[in-house]
């Protein structure tokens, strides 16, 4: 077999993964019908795609739900901290700022 040219590899991959422009797609289809080296590249790309897509690893449903709950929890905590800080900063006298720092260290950092 003749070694497929690099452009053929890219064109064949693009055809299989639908990333070609209309002109490139037309060229690829024309080559598939008339150029044995391109057809060979297309067959090899198809073989690689067929085998390698088997490696897709979907996240298990339980893990998916657990991770999303953790993300929401972390986002909720961050929001709570931001709101609490704003409320305390606007309602507490300035001189009590150090109390808030101690409060944050003891409550938030060590939680």
């Amino acid at each position: 077999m003749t070694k497929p040219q690099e452009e053929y590899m890219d064109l064949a991959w693009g055809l299989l993964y639908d990333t070609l422009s209309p002109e490139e797609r037309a060229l690829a289809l024309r080559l598939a019908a008339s150029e044995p080296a391109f057809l060979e590249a297309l067959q090899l790309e198809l073989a690689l795609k067929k085998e390698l897509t088997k490696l897709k690893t979907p996240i298990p449903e339980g893990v998916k739900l657990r991770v999303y709950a953790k993300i929401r929890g972390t986002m909720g905590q961050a929001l709570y901290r931001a709101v609490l800080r704003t409320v305390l900063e606007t309602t507490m006298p300035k001189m009590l700022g150090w109390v808030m720092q101690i409060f944050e260290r003891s409550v938030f950092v060590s939680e």
Partner: protein
Amino acid sequence: MDLERLYREHVDAVYGYLSFKLRDSQAVEDLVQETFLAAHQGLNRLHSVNSPKAWLLTIAHNKLVDFLRRRPVHLPLQAESLAAAGGEAANLFAQEILEQLAEPERTIVYGLYVEGLTYRELGEMLGIPEGTVKSKAHYARKYLYNWLQGGSR
């Protein structure tokens, strides 16, 4: 696009990529979480990206690099990784294909064929020039073409 939709549509790709690179399922879970939290913080940048999946995989890759810097671990071959995760026998040939390659060619081939990422997206994800991705992909493909035709199966 909000975080919930982003998560629903692309968590499989992020999880799949991280599982491909790491055998530690707890670390994978933590990195998926870190990836989506970082994405949430940068959600306003989403409108300027062409592919949300490629953007998320770039974040996931950067999180992985940070993780490995903090806690260097052996990066397993795909076969080891999948075997540890209970990979199916049907995937053995696919694992064998990737085992023919070294890094970063292996990750490039994974990105091209498993996730359908373009050279540009892979370049952004891995932090290397698009032209480098292209030449490494060509090298890897030629190798795999020869290997496929060599009757190694």
